[in-house]
């Protein structure tokens, strides 16, 4: 029996009810506990060294049963979803923030957007919801009319303040100096040293989760591909996989492999851009231009072979819509040869440059114990010694074929900017290696398989390792089989907390460098 299942049963006994034939894939366990046992369940998970992957709410009035609060825990390759039912006339639930730190923002978001109050939560300031929204606007509730603009009301956000002699404050954003997304950062500093950073996000909240509810299942992949433009492939794969698991659609091997090739190419392109940009923020512009050149080459090959520079909208429910022929394969292999050689030369230059090393070593350290406490994912987790990668743990096809695709990603433990660059360098090389493997061994078959629509009252889950890290989708079909809820958990939703912690004690001029080394998505977080 799975570890998490055993742990929750031994701790809660008969109070846990495992629900079969509702949530797919069946490998992800799904159970219901009474509302007052929610924290006990969290404690049982904590004792088992599980991490909190996501926490979200659903409005289940269409099923005639109030609200649902869900917490998804991860341990190794296992996922366990714990659900509590909340009556409509008493929308409150026990907070688990004191047990799992990342619940801090998840629960603020649940309160702000769904109006279900986390009891004993240490900080109930709204999140995503701004102070000028009407107080009773809860967009994720079914009764909320999402098509109408909301009036602005007066209100104020209570910033955390540091006081004392010589403490000053630097507000930054939402419109930043570079070509990046909007968000607000408030630093409290003494001299050059940052003593606290408070993030304020939500500026690019486009109402994506609500939007999904008004779309048809077969169209949602396009919206998923635009949750975070730089991760378009991974998000559409995650959406499609969740939908496919609900409907029992089996993809051809070829479709799985092509998806993986797209995913790895997305990883390469973004990592190249990041390595360059990190160096640029340490005034090493040479590397930025060299990496941007390589990135452009990858994007152009994408355009030529697959018809889009970021391979947007090419992953659809049931498979993919573009194929690769023999000529295309040769072209990609030649591109990868050139890329691998040039990349190695650039990495040598990076490694031998003492002035860049001086900037990136011991800067923005996220200690392994902090990383575990915050349940961060992806490159940020791996740079802090937390070996999480859904391509290895809870692998999805084709990564589950360990005899054919074996992955070896670096997991340093220093947690500084240097480590995050090191992970990216290692992953670019791994991605090049496995794309070559996949091209050589590409199975034959159809590109798409027919997808039926989900039946009423079922749910689908997926976890996909995008270039930033684990992306989770949880889809729920309503009483008529329509989209009742589409929960999106981008890696940024948890990793932004990591940046706040990593910055303590660093100097203000190193903030861009640290921020770039995390490079989290604002859009993926704000939704």
């Amino acid at each position, binding site marked *: 029996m799975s570890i998490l299942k055993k742990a929750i049963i031994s701790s809660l006994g008969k109070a846990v009810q495992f629900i079969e034939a509702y949530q797919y894939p069946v490998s992800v366990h799904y159970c219901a506990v009474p509302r007052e046992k929610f924290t006990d369940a969290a404690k049982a998970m904590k004792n088992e060294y599980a991490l909190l992957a996501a926490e979200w709410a659903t409005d289940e009035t269409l099923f005639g049963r109030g609200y649902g609060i869900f917490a998804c825990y991860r341990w190794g390759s296992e996922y366990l979803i714990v659900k509590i039912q909340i009556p409509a006339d008493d929308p409150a639930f026990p907070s688990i923030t004191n047990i799992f730190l990342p619940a801090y923002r998840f629960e603020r978001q649940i309160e702000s957007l769904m109006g279900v109050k986390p009891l004993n939560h240490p900080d109930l300031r709204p999140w995503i919801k701004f102070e000028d929204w009407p107080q009773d606007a809860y967009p994720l509730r079914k009764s909320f009319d999402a098509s109408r603009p909301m009036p602005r009301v007066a209100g104020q956000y209570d910033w955390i303040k540091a006081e004392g002699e010589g403490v000053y404050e630097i507000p930054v954003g939402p*419109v930043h100096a570079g070509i990046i*997304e909007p968000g607000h950062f408030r630093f409290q500093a003494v001299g050059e040293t940052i003593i606290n950073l408070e993030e304020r996000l939500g500026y690019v909240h486009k109402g994506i989760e609500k939007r999904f509810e008004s779309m048809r299942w077969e169209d949602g992949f396009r919206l998923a591909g635009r949750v975070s433009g730089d991760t378009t492939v991974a998000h559409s794969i995650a959406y499609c996989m969740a939908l496919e698991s609900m409907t029992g659609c089996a993809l051809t091997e070829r479709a799985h492999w092509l998806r993986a090739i797209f995913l790895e190419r997305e990883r390469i392109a973004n990592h190249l851009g990041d390595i360059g940009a990190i160096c640029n923020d340490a005034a090493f512009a040479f590397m930025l231009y060299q990496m*941007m050149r390589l990135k452009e080459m990858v994007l152009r090959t994408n355009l030529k072979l697959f018809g889009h520079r970021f391979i947007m909208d090419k992953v659809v429910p049931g498979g993919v819509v573009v194929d690769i022929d023999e000529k295309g394969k040769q072209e990609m292999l030649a591109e990868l040869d050139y890329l691998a050689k040039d990349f190695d030369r650039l990495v040598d230059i990076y490694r031998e440059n003492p002035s860049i090393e001086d900037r990136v070593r011991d800067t923005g350290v996220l200690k392994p114990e902090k990383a575990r406490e915050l349940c961060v994912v992806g490159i940020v987790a791996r740079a802090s010694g937390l070996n999480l990668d859904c391509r290895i743990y809870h692998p999805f096809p084709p990564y589950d074929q360990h005899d054919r695709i074996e992955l070896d990603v670096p997991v340093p433990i220093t947690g500084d900017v240097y480590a995050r660059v090191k992970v990216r360098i290692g992953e670019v090389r791994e991605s090049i290696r496995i794309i070559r493997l996949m091209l050589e061994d590409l199975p034959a078959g159809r590109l798409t398989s027919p997808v039926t629509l989900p039946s009423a009252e079922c749910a689908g889950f997926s976890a996909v390792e995008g270039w930033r890290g684990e992306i989770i989708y949880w889809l729920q079909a309503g009483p008529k089989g329509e989209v009742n809820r589409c929960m999106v958990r981008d890696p940024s939703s948890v990793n932004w907390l990591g940046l706040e912690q990593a910055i303590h004690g660093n100097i203000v001029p190193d903030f861009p460098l640290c921020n770039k080394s995390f490079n989290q998505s604002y859009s993926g977080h704000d939704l």
Partner: protein
Amino acid sequence: MIRILRQIFRTGIVTEPLPGEVTAEIEQVGARLEETVRKRFSGSLAIRQVDAGSCNGCELEIHAINNPIYNCERYGIHFTASPRFADMLLVTGPVTRNMEIALRRTYNATPSPKLVVAVGDCGCNGGIFGESYASLGGVSKIIPVDVYIPGCPPTPAALLNGILKAISKF
């Protein structure tokens, strides 16, 4: 250091000319761009980019026009850190409710005469996000727009083309 120099020499100048039809397009756009920038903006066009709610796809392509291959700086185009000395706002959308005020403030902080270019399908009309409680739709719902560059996201060549179209209106 010697490795850096060697890599620079090995790379050479990668700025277009490029194979295929992209070249012709860029060359053509580029030549006209440079001339217009020289004539109307004394050789330098300062752009302030504002993300008013995009998915960051458009930002990737705006970054790309700064890469050594498209190298927009050769036409005198550069991106500034502040709207206070910008000639043009390059706005990606859709404009979210939470960014509306910041966008208006940025617009007001930009000295007149100024140009506004709406980038991407979402910047043009709200795109897939449409109009809702959180998304107000295209950029023109909030501030006057001079030129639209559609595409999801628009290619770097389309971006350069759109910028040219905007400054030839000036």
